[in-house]
């Protein structure tokens, strides 16, 4: 039987309960109202994680969609030295996987720091082996690493990206703003175990946009042919270096740009900047006799001479402004066409003097010498061309045979492509399309006409002269069976830096031309720097033109148009 409480006890009970509720209420008000803002921040800090994401760097592909550069997510390994019990043991275990010396790893792991990189962007296989080790205090994060699956192929054009994914050279640098993925900071919700529950908001759910993809005008097979033949020529001539550019003359598209020696953008650590400089754009050289092709165009366009105009060759020796000009062949009266075909310096000098300073300068400028071609690659030089005010009495003759002027290989091939295509100077380009991650074309490069330089009639006349160079002139070794080839050889003495005079032993051998001459598909320049022994352009560079031209025409399916031979071929099956 329950004993009724006295009134006093009831009051005390009520007061105690009210006090208790009061305390709870006070605490609640303190937490939920007075400290609400501060505690919300604290709670968010524990529940949320702010992560910075960057979209993958865009890929670079050739004109047939073959991948030349692309990003892969690969593991980067870090350590938490403060969480390690035995740095020496951990270092030994990691050493074989990471292929890094264990004492070097141990030194890093003994640092008094909360975070230290042990190896960045290692191979995926190494990452898998590391995960299997499950070492306390060792972690792996994924980072984007640039891969160049074709190795050294096209390395001087592609350039490379740095450790943090930024483009440092070549196309990687020139198109950095397109290739780089979007950077995005995202807040993630996480639980007590640190697992991500929900990205906060729809924007974060979509993730950062990857970089744009670039499609080049380059064809990897043509590039391979050019690099292979150039390497063989450089090695065969024991030359210092070599360059080859293959261009589609009507559009200015580059099909190949080869520089030898090459480098592998996947393994840069031991290389110097000199090795990865794209010398086809950055280095000016004295073109020598290849300039006579330009001279011929100017002289014929200005009607100073016709291809059959006669010039006296002075038996291969002439003095201009106290300087003796020599020819390698003693010529008497010959046609202007023969002067070009036989590469007569005397004849060219006479034609240049007839042309005059003003017109010579105007045509050199019109053909793009002394200015950048504006190709979409970094580091292009404009070449070296003197102001006519600085010309000496010898300059006009010198320019006629390609001296006292510095041109880049890309300038020279672009100028000769203008003769090939009927007289129009095109702007060379190497990126044909920029696409977003979904493959939609964002920008497309169209051929860009810079200006008309000579008439189609003059271009046709010069082509016939240049065909003669290959048929029965200095460029016979450039001839390709079944095709009409037009071109010009060049053998330029280099300046000896020690004496400041032309060297008797150092040459730049070159050949520039196009094929088929009647409907050109390829304009090409071959330059061999400092070949040993026989250094004539016709001996060293012209055969490279032949070998590249023949293989590329086959590859492109360009018909030689010889029905009789075709019938014999079918009979062979």
């Amino acid at each position, binding site marked *: 039987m329950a004993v009724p409480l006295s009134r006093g006890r009831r009051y005390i009970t009520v007061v105690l309960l009210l006090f208790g509720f009061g305390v709870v209420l006070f605490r609640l008000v303190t937490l939920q109202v007075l400290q609400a803002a501060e505690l919300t921040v604290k709670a968010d800090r524990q529940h949320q994680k702010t992560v910075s994401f960057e979209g993958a760097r865009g890929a670079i592909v050739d004109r047939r969609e*073959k*991948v030349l550069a*692309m*990003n*892969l*997510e690969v593991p980067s390994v870090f350590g938490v030295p403060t969480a390690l019990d035995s740095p020496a043991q951990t270092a030994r275990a990691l050493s074989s996987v990471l292929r890094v010396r264990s004492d070097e790893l141990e030194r890093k792991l003994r640092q008094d720091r909360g975070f230290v990189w042990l190896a960045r962007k290692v191979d*995926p296989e190494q990452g898998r082996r590391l995960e299997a080790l499950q070492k306390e205090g060792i972690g792996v994060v*994924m980072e984007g690493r640039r*891969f160049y*699956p*074709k*190795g050294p*192929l096209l390395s001087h054009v592609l350039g490379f990206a740095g450790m943090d994914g930024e483009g440092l050279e070549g196309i990687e640098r020139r198109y950095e703003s397109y290739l780089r993925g979007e950077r995005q900071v995202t807040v993630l919700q996480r*639980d007590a175990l640190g*697992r*991500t*529950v*929900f990205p906060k908001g729809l924007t974060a759910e979509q993730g950062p946009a990857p970089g744009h993809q670039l499609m080049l005008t380059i064809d*990897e*097979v043509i*590039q*391979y042919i050019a690099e*292979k033949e150039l390497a063989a020529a450089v090695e065969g001539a024991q030359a210092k270096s070599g360059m080859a550019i293959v261009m589609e003359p009507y559009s200015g598209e580059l099909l190949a740009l080869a520089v030898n020696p090459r480098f592998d953008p996947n393994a840069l650590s031991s290389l110097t900047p000199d090795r990865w400089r794209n010398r086809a754009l950055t280095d000016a050289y004295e073109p020598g006799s290849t300039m006579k092709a330009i001279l011929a165009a100017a002289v014929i366009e200005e009607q100073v001479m016709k291809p059959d105009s006669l010039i006296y060759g002075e038996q291969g020796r002439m003095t201009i402004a106290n300087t003796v000009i020599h020819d390698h062949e003693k010529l008497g009266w010959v046609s202007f066409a023969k002067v070009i075909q036989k590469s007569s310096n005397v004849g060219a000098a006479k034609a240049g003097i007839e042309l005059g300073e003003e017109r010579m300068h105007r045509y050199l400028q019109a053909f793009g010498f002394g200015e950048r071609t504006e190709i979409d690659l970094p580091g292009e030089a404009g070449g070296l061309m003197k102001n006519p005010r600085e010309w000496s009495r010898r300059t006009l003759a010198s320019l006629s045979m390609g001296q006292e002027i510095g041109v880049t290989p890309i300038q020279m091939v672009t100028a000769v492509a203008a003769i090939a295509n009927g007289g129009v100077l095109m702007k060379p380009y190497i990126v044909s399309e920029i696409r977003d991650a979904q493959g939609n074309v964002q920008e497309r490069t169209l051929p860009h006409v810079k200006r008309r330089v000579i008439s189609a009639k003059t271009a046709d006349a010069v082509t016939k002269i240049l065909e003669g160079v290959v048929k029965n002139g200095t460029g016979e070794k450039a001839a390709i*069976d079944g095709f009409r080839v037009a071109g010009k050889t060049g053998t330029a003495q280099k300046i000896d830096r020690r004496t400041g005079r032309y060297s008797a032993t150092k040459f730049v051998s070159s050949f520039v031309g196009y094929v088929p001459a009647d409907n050109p598909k390829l304009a090409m320049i071959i330059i061999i720097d400092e070949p040993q022994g026989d250094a004539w352009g016709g001996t060293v560079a012209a055969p490279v033109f032949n070998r590249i031209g*023949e*293989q590329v*025409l*086959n590859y492109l*399916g*360009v*018909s*030689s*148009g010889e029905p009789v*031979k*075709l019938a*014999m*071929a*079918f*009979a*062979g*099956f």
Partner: protein
Amino acid sequence: MKILVGVAGLCLVFGFVWERVDIVRVGYQVERLKSEKVKLERERDQLRVKFSTLSAPDRIAKVATERLGMTPPQNGQVIVVQARTAEPSSPQAVPAPVRVASNQFFDGRR
């Protein structure tokens, strides 16, 4: 009546709690699937790089010459035929290049 209200209230509470728990469960599932997607994308990219490496012209030429004993076609062994495919519907013939590999040299050498 009171019991019914009580039961309904309890159901509402359980329903609310179940919904919250399920949201978290689906959240984990979404995260797991996303991780799997990322993993598969990584694998796809790795295979793409591998394919690209294996199909490099340098390597193909090396395998063809060193392992398979092939040689580059000699002068005259590849003949490009400019064929014309005339269709009844299109009066204009469209030239299409056809490459013919010949095993016979023009000069009769084999």
